[in-house]
C-alpha cells in the first residue's frame, strides 16, 4: 500500500454572515460587541407563540453571492427546519434551506498545485440563521443570544479540492468575492466567515469515495491549512494500519493544531428536515435578479486581469492592489489625476501608502489622504519638482498633518534646486575636494561618479535633481 495510490478529496462549506442591519427573522440589530443578550427579543429567543418574518434584505445579498459565483438563482425558494437540540439554538431547530435553496450549480476558478487553472463546482448556496454562543465556565455554561438569528449564507462546494493549497486558494478567492460584493464583512476572527472542511482519502484506481471526516468551525486560513494536513495524515495512518476511518465530526484544537472527535456520525444524526410552515415560499423574479446583476461590482479576478492589461501592472501588483476593491479604486483614481506612469503610481499606493496605513492600523477608505492629495504629490515628482526621497518624507507629513504636498514643500523649502549656478558651484567645489576620485573617473571608472553625486546631494540637502548634478559633474570634469 502506497500513499501515492490515494488522493485527497476535500469539500468545503463556508458560512458567511450577511451585512444586513437587522437579524433575519426579527428587527434586532446585528453585530456589535455589546453586553451579552442585549440584542435579543422574544422572536430570536424563541418564546412560545413567536413567528419568524423574513428580512427581505437577505435576498439581495444571497442573490448577489449566487450571481458572483455563477450560480443559477432559483425562481421559487422555501425554508426548512433542521431539528436538533442545543442550548444556543433556542427554537430547537434551525431555519435553513434544505429542499429549495436560493442558488445552485455555480463555479469558482482557482489555481491547482501546478499553478494551472482549476474549476471548483459550487453545489448550492442556502440562506440560514446563525446560532447563539455557549460560554463554558468551569462547572456551568452561559448562553449569549446576541448572534442568534444573524443571517448567514452557507456555500457548499462539491468535493473538487485535492490539497490544502487548493483549499486555501478556494477560500481566499471566495472570501475576496464575498467581501468585494459587500455580501459579508468577512472578518474571520469575528466569525463573519468560517468554514467546515470535509476530507477523505480515495484510492486513485477506484470510483468509490473514502469515508470522510468533517472538521467544523475553522475561522482562519492557517487553521484550515493545519487541519487539512493533520486530517490527511490521520486518515492515511488509519488506512495504512488497515483500520476503517470512522465517519466523524471533529473540532480543531488551536493549541495543539490537531483535531479531536466532537461526535460520531450515525443514523442518530438525523435532522428530520421538513418545510418551515411559518414562512411562505418566496418567488424571485427575473427582474429582481437582473437588477442585482446590473449592480454587481467588478469581481477580483476580472479586476486583476484588467489592471494588468490597462496599466501594464505586474501580476503581483495587480493582485495586491485588487486585494480590496477600495484599494484598487484608490489606485485608479490617483492614476487619472497624475502624469506619473501607472506602474510607479501602483508602487506608491501599495508600498508607501500601505506602509502608513498598516502602521496606523487604518483603512484605505477612511483615511483623510485621498487620491487627489496623493496625485498632487506624485505630480511634483513627475514634474521634477521634488526628489523621490523627499517625496516619501512629504507623504508621511501629509498623512500626519493633513497638509497638502505643495504646502509642505513650500514651507520647508524642499523643492529641487533649479539654480544651475548653485549646482555649478557645488560641482566645482567637489572636484577640487576629491582629486583622487576625479582622476579615477577620468581613467574610466565611471561608477565613481555616483559617489560624487551623492556628496553633492548631501550638500544640497536632497533638493537637487540627481540627473542635473550628474550632467554638471560630467561636464566640469570633462573640461
Amino acid at each position, binding site marked *: 500500500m502506497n500513499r501515492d495510490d490515494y488522493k485527497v478529496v476535500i469539500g468545503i462549506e463556508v458560512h458567511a454572515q450577511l451585512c444586513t442591519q437587522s437579524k433575519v427573522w426579527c428587527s434586532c440589530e446585528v453585530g456589535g460587541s455589546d453586553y451579552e443578550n442585549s440584542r435579543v*427579543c*422574544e422572536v430570536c*429567543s*424563541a*418564546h*412560545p*407563540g*413567536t*413567528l*419568524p*418574518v*423574513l428580512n427581505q434584505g437577505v435576498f439581495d445579498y444571497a442573490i448577489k453571492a449566487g450571481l458572483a459565483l455563477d450560480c443559477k438563482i432559483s425562481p421559487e425558494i422555501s425554508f426548512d*427546519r433542521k*431539528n436538533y*437540540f442545543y*442550548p444556543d439554538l*433556542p*427554537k*430547537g*431547530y434551525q431555519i435553513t434551506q434544505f429542499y429549495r435553496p436560493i442558488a445552485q450549480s455555480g463555479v469558482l476558478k482557482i489555481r491547482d498545485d501546478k499553478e494551472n487553472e482549476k474549476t471548483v463546482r459550487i453545489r448550492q448556496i442556502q440562506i440560514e440563521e446563525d446560532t447563539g454562543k455557549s460560554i463554558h465556565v468551569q462547572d456551568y*455554561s452561559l*448562553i449569549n443570544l446576541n448572534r442568534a438569528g444573524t443571517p448567514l449564507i452557507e456555500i457548499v462546494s462539491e468535493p473538487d479540492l485535492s490539497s490544502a493549497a487548493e483549499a486555501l486558494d478556494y477560500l481566499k478567492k471566495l472570501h475576496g468575492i464575498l467581501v468585494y460584493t459587500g455580501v459579508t464583512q468577512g472578518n474571520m476572527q469575528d466569525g463573519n466567515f468560517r468554514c467546515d472542511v470535509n476530507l477523505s482519502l480515495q484510492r486513485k484506481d477506484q470510483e468509490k469515495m473514502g469515508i470522510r471526516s468533517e472538521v467544523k468551525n475553522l475561522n482562519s486560513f492557517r487553521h484550515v491549512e493545519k487541519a487539512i494536513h493533520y486530517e490527511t495524515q490521520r486518515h492515511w495512518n488509519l488506512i495504512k494500519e488497515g483500520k476503517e476511518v470512522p465517519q466523524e465530526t471533529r473540532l480543531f484544537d488551536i493549541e495543539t493544531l490537531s483535531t479531536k472527535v466532537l461526535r460520531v456520525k450515525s*443514523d442518530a444524526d*438525523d435532522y*428530520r*428536515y*421538513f418545510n418551515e*410552515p*411559518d*414562512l*411562505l415560499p418566496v418567488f424571485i423574479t427575473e427582474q429582481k435578479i437582473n437588477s442585482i446583476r446590473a449592480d454587481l461590482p467588478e469581481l477580483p479576478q476580472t479586476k486583476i486581469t484588467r489592471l494588468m492589461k490597462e496599466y501594464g501592472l505586474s501580476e503581483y501588483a495587480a493582485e495586491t492592489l485588487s486585494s480590496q476593491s477600495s484599494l484598487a479604486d484608490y489606485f485608479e483614481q490617483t492614476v487619472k489625476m497624475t502624469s506619473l506612469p501607472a506602474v510607479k503610481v501602483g508602487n506608491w499606493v501599495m508600498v508607501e501608502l500601505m506602509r502608513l496605513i498598516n502602521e496606523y492600523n487604518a483603512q484605505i477608505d477612511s483615511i483623510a489622504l485621498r487620491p487627489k492629495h496623493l496625485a498632487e504629490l506624485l505630480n511634483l515628482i513627475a514634474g521634477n519638482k521634488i526628489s523621490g526621497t523627499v517625496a516619501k518624507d512629504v507623504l508621511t507629513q501629509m498623512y500626519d498633518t493633513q497638509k497638502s504636498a505643495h504646502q509642505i514643500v513650500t514651507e520647508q523649502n524642499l523643492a529641487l534646486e533649479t539654480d544651475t549656478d548653485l549646482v555649478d558651484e557645488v560641482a566645482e567645489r567637489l572636484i577640487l575636494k576629491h582629486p583622487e576620485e576625479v582622476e579615477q573617473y577620468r581613467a574610466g571608472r565611471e561608477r565613481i561618479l555616483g559617489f560624487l553625486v551623492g556628496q553633492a546631494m548631501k550638500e544640497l540637502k536632497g533638493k537637487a535633481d540627481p540627473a542635473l548634478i550628474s550632467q554638471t559633474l560630467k561636464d566640469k570634469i570633462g573640461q
Partner: protein
Amino acid sequence: MKDIYSLHQMYLKKETSPVEVLQDCLKIAEKNKLNSYITVCSDLALDQAKKAQKRFTDGKPLSYLDGIPYSLKDLFVTKGIRTTAGSKHLLNYHPPYQGSVAQFLSDSGATLVGKVGCDEFGMGSTNENTPYGAILNPLDPNRVAGGSSGGSAAAVAENSCSFSMGTDTGGSVRLPSFYCGLTGFKPSYGTVTRYGQIAYASSLDQAAPIGRNCLDLAAVMEVISQADPKDSTQLRKDPLQLVSSLLNNQQTKIKLGVDASLLEGCDPDVLKELQACLQYLSQNASIELVDISLPHLQYGISVYYLIAPAEASANLARYDGIHYGEREKAENLEDIYRLTRGKTLGTEVKKRIMLGTFALSSGYSQQFFEKACQVRELIARDFDLAFEKCDYIFSPVSSTKALELKEKRKPMSSIQLYLNDLYTVPVNLAGLPALSLPIPSKQKLPGGFQLIGSYASDAELLKTGYQLEKILEGLS
C-alpha cells in the same frame, strides 16, 4: 348572559354597564365550578371595565366589543399574565411580550376575565390531557366540555364571559362548541394572526372564537382578523365589516352540499338530529340540498396524526428548560433535557412528539410524512370539486355527543378518541373556514352541525350561518 350585540345595545342605552356585567362574570369565574379557568384576572378586568364604562358615558365606545367580558384559551400569550398552554412546563411562565390577538382585543375595549384551561398545547378532544384538571360540561357535569378549547366553551356556557378565544387545529373549537351547545367558528387558515398563539401544528393552527351566535362571532372576527405584520402566513385582506353586513343581509339562495356517507358513521341520536335538521332546512325556499362526494375524507385522521405531530415535534423542541419554563436539576445537559421534558410534558404530548419525530425521521419520512402531505392535497381537492356543485357543505361535527368523564366512561383507546375529530380535521387540512352551529333541541345536550365554506369565504360563511340560525329558530 346576553349576546354581544344585545349587551352593546344595553350599554348604549345605559340599561346595564360593563362593570355590572363583569362583576356577575367574575363571581362565576372566581368560583370556577367547572374548572374553566387557570387564571382569573379580576383586578385587571375591573380596571378595563371601568375604562369601558367611562367611554360609554362619554358616548365614545371603541367597538362592539367595548366593555364585553371575554376569556382567552391559555395558549394565547398575554404580556405579564401567566400563560401555561395547559402544560406543567409553563407553570410559572409570564410572557415578556404581548400576543397579537390579546392586543387586538384589548385595543377593542373588551375586558379580559381570565385565561381558560385547555388540553396541553391543544392536544386532545376531551380537555382531560392537562395537569390543571378536566373541564366539566356546563350542561352535564358528568361529561367533558370537549377539547382542546374546553375551558373556552365551558366559560361561555357558564356565563363567566360573553365570548372566548379558542384555537382550532383539528376541531378544537368546533367540538367543544358542539358539546356545550354553543357556536364556534374556525376561520380560513391565515385569517387571524398566529403571533402570540402558542404553536401546536403551525400549518393547521388557527385562532377561533366561541360565542352564542353568528353575530357574536362576526363582532369578534371584525377585531381579530386585523392585518398583523408579525405573521407572514396571514392573508392580508381589508378589515371585515361583518356585523353590519350580517344585520343587513337579505336571505339568499343557498346550495347546501351533503355527503350522505359522512352521516352514516354517527351515533343514532346524533344522526336523528342531523336528519331532522336537514329535513327542516330543505323545506325552506332559500335552501337546496345537493349530493356531493368527499371520498378522501376517510384518510383525514391518518393524515392529521402524521402532519400535526410532525410539526409539533419541532414546535415543542423549545421547551427544553434552558431559556424559560420549568427546569429539572441535573448534572449535565442531556439530563436537563431528559428530566425536564420527561417530567414537565404530559403523556399525550410526549406521545405526539414521538409520533412526529418518527414520521419525520430519515428512512420513514417519505413513507409517512411526505405521503401524508400528498394525501392532504387530495383532501383539499375533494373540497374544491364539491364547491363546484354547492356553496357550503353540511356535515356532522362529531359522531357522538359529549363523552362522559374519563373515570365514568368505558376505557377508550387513543385511536377511538382521535376519531372524535373525523369530521373536523379535514377542514384544517384544507385550510377552510367552518362553523359549528347548534341544532335547537329539548334534550339536555343539544345537537349540532358543521357548515363548511370554501377557502377565504369567511364573511359569506358567517352570513350564511346567521341565515340558517334564523331559519332553525323555528325548529324547536
